[in-house]
């Protein structure tokens, strides 16, 4: 007989952000049928309010650090960091979406519920300390994102994006699950800390073959979710086909959450066999940087270009993972935060510029934007410079800390190749800047409309975040440094 049917209230407070977001998402779904199409934007307001309360809930949960629900969830600095990050990404994505949805599909508001549920899943992933929770969080997040990718269901590009995302995504998740089943068979537990204990005790250590295969299978699943080579093939197609604000969302939020579980699983559970997985992550980091940067050189569609760029950025974070140290973990956390701001900002510009039916999504369409809308162009330039890694932007310090961590882990070749890759990347980002400022305004720039208020807020907030991380990196980095020691 259990002591009490109800969990202690500290446990409930530790999952406060998830509770708040679930309530807000349900509220959106209940209110959605009752509102007339022109009032659906109200639901966007509810979503933002819910996300803000959840951000407060994250701070409250952070006061009650420790494991909850029989070690299923753990609230530590690492969890708080990623929870806050995915919630902020959610807010920015909703801000970008309000005007976009009014224009493309005014009759439906369940979009906001899907964003909220996806954030719930990512938040669960951030705090999961257990393979079951990791799987559930991943699926809550993924299923909502599959639907979002195909949200404009009369648009063929959306259909194609959703079906490709779904098929490859669930295939990869199936492999992840198979890996989880084997590690459960090998270690007899699904708790990450317990797995670590079993693997590091020589008398208990299970057959190395079983552990190796399950770590490899789980790597397939995680590498897919973070779009690391050789499992990155889906990303360009999905990012290009999905609605622009959804791409902004899924290139930042789910990716950060996937890196959170990746780091947690490989830095706690599989740490005793780190000499086995380090070379694999090393190779994957290398391939990811090359594929992302070199394929991006050839792109003309700006969403596809940014998709390849997002693959390349996943490669830089993989460098930090393969450093396999607390400094590496902190560097990865900082980079993901900087990346979230600059990438969502860049996609917010795409959202604004694409217009009805996403007509203008080629790099050449941006010609002359610098003359027509100097402010938007200047903000876009900040994001692009940050993506290159120019000083005074978050992207610079992100790369700096990652390569510093790589050098301290004696990964000299990876550092050299990473730096060369950043130089290659500068070419395709600068090309956008050149088109924007030095080409004669084309038809697309002539007809550009003023920036919608939601997108404007998202743009300014992302730019502020990017510059803040570039000028005062210690604000986030100190927190990341203190949180990088995971529960072991």
């Amino acid at each position: 007989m259990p002591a009490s049917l109800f969990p202690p209230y500290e446990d409930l407070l530790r999952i406060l952000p998830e509770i708040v977001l679930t309530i807000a998402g349900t509220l959106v779904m209940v209110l959605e049928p009752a509102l007339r199409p022109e009032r659906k934007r109200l639901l966007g307001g509810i979503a933002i309010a819910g996300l803000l309360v959840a951000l407060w809930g994250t701070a409250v949960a952070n006061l009650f650090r420790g494991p909850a629900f029989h070690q299923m969830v753990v609230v530590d600095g690492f969890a708080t960091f990623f929870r806050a990050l995915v919630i902020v990404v959610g807010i920015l994505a909703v801000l970008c979406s309000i005007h976009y949805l009014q224009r493309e599909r005014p009759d439906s508001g369940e979009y906001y519920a899907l964003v909220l549920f996806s954030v719930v899943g990512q938040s669960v992933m951030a705090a999961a300390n257990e393979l079951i929770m990791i799987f559930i969080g991943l699926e809550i997040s993924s299923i909502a994102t599959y639907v979002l990718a195909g949200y404009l269901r009369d648009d063929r590009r959306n259909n194609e994006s959703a079906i490709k995302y779904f098929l490859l995504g669930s295939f990869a998740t199936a492999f992840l699950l198979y890996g989880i089943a084997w590690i459960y068979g090998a270690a007899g537990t699904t708790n990450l800390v317990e797995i670590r204990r079993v693997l590091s005790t020589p008398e208990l250590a299970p057959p190395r073959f079983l552990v190796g295969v399950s770590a490899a299978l789980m790597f397939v699943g995680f590498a897919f979710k973070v779009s690391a080579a050789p499992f990155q093939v889906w990303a360009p197609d999905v990012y290009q086909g999905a609605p622009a604000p959804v791409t902004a969302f899924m290139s930042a939020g789910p990716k950060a959450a996937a890196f959170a579980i990746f780091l947690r699983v490989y830095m706690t559970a599989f740490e005793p066999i780190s000499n086995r997985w380090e070379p694999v992550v090393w190779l994957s980091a290398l391939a990811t940087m090359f594929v992302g940067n070199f394929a991006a050189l050839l792109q003309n569609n700006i969403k596809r270009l940014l998709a390849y760029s997002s693959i390349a950025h996943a490669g830089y974070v993989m460098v930090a993972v393969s450093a396999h140290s607390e400094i590496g973990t902190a560097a990865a956390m900082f980079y993901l935060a900087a990346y979230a701001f600059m990438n969502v900002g860049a996609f917010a510009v795409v959202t604004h510029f694409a217009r009805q039916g996403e007509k203008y999504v080629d790099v050449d369409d941006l010609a002359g934007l610098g003359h027509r809308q100097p402010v938007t162009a200047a903000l876009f330039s900040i994001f692009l410079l940050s993506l290159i890694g120019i000083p005074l932007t978050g992207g610079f310090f992100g790369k700096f800390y990652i390569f510093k961590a790589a050098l301290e882990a004696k990964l000299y070749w990876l550092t050299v190749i990473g730096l060369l890759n950043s130089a290659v990347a500068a070419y395709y980002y600068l090309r956008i800047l050149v088109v924007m400022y030095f080409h004669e305004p084309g038809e697309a720039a002539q007809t550009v409309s003023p920036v919608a208020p939601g997108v404007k807020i998202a743009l300014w907030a992302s730019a502020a975040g990017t510059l803040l991380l570039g000028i005062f990196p210690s604000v986030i980095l100190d927190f990341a440094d203190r949180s990088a020691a995971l529960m072991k």
Partner: protein
Amino acid sequence: MHPVTNVHYMVLSVALLLVGTIGVLTRRNIVIILMSIELILNAVNINLVAFSHHFGDVHGQVFAIFVIAVAAAETTVALGILIALFRNKETVLADEVDLLKW
């Protein structure tokens, strides 16, 4: 002596995994690809329940129930996406979905 051991379950599960993987990689029809993914998930469930029985630990069985529930949700979403695709393109063949490429 119990005739069925863990090894038997694992062999069955690996066989199902292979059938499912080959199905995903070689079939063109998206509905059959979905069925193949379900096969892999069932391979996972067999493993989980067998190990759970072996350890006398209930976690594996609970996990299997979660996998079944999530797989059902996933299939629902997949069929929804597929119907939207079919309405616009009149096809369920994976290689005819080729609008986005470089």
